[in-house]
């Protein structure tokens, strides 16, 4: 399979995503430029973290209208796999490829710390290598990660299993104290209705080596590889 990692002006984690894919997972991964419409035959497109277009107006609001996003939207509508991490998640929500929105953390502080998330649905291309209820230790680093969606929409998403990862405490419970940013339903990441688009605030690309804090992120990337094998 082939990966494409998009770089927007202001992206920060594009290199780390390429490193995780190429150097750690030995994948064929290519950088994609925000002005390019060509996705270079990627089977999975990664929208990385950072502050695309300075996060002006709203996080992800400007990136949504970049040329590459037109192709990403077409690609997703045709069933292509899209993974949005942090700012990438915000962009996917702004582009209406994912429901809901991400707003300012309830603490109003930028948070940079490791969190534990629980995998809620393993029947998706992004989580199929995980065990049901498996806990992953991943870092977060964001100021606007509070996930919001209308209550009725949230209920439908929960029923369909679109909430793929949720913040939990040491015992695996989605306690309020373990919710770093105040997200509704302790949501850390959601998929679309057809489960080919996934966005999450934690950074799997920063958790791929045991020497550097653990390999929790590998489960996400390996799931994608497994689903396309």
């Amino acid at each position, binding site marked *: 399979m082939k990966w494409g990692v998009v770089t927007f002006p202001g992206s920060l984690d594009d290199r780390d995503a390429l490193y995780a894919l190429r150097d750690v997972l030995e994948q064929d991964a290519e950088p994609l430029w925000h002005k390019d419409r060509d996705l270079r035959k990627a089977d999975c497109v990664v929208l990385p973290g950072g502050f695309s277009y300075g996060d002006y107006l709203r996080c992800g609001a400007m990136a949504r209208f970049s040329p590459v996003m037109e192709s990403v939207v077409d690609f997703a509508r045709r069933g292509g796999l899209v993974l949005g991490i942090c700012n990438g998640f915000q962009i996917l929500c702004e582009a209406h490829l994912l429901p809901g929105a991400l707003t*300012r*953390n*309830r603490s109003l502080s930028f948070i940079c710390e490791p969190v534990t998330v629980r995998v809620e649905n393993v029947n998706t291309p992004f989580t199929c290598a995980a065990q049901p209820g498996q806990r992953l230790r991943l870092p977060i680093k964001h100021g606007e990660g509070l996930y*919001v969606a209308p209550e009725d929409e949230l209920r439908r998403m929960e029923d369909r299993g679109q909430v793929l990862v949720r913040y939990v405490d040491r015992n695996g419970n989605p306690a309020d104290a373990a919710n770093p940013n105040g997200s509704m339903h302790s949501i850390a990441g959601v998929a679309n209705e057809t489960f080919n688009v996934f966005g999450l605030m934690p950074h799997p690309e920063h958790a791929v080596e045991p020497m550097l804090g653990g390999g929790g992120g590998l489960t996400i990337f390996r799931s994608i590889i497994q689903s396309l094998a």
Partner: protein
Amino acid sequence: MQVKVFITPKKGVLDPQGRAIEHSLRSLGFDNVGQVRMGKYIELDVAAASSDEAAGEVKRMCDRLLANSVIEDYRVEVERA
């Protein structure tokens, strides 16, 4: 024509900034303060033949880019020349 856009968090959407301002005002002794909501204010110059045309155009801008309908409401005001 000058057009003003007021963007506010939708009712029911958590507004931590508004809440922080509310707490600060209370701690300054403004006990009469109720709920505070914080939003954005945008001023635009728009070439249009009438106020209606300008308002319609800016509403389209709000729907496409300026506001996110999942979390925000907006109000458009056209200034008389």
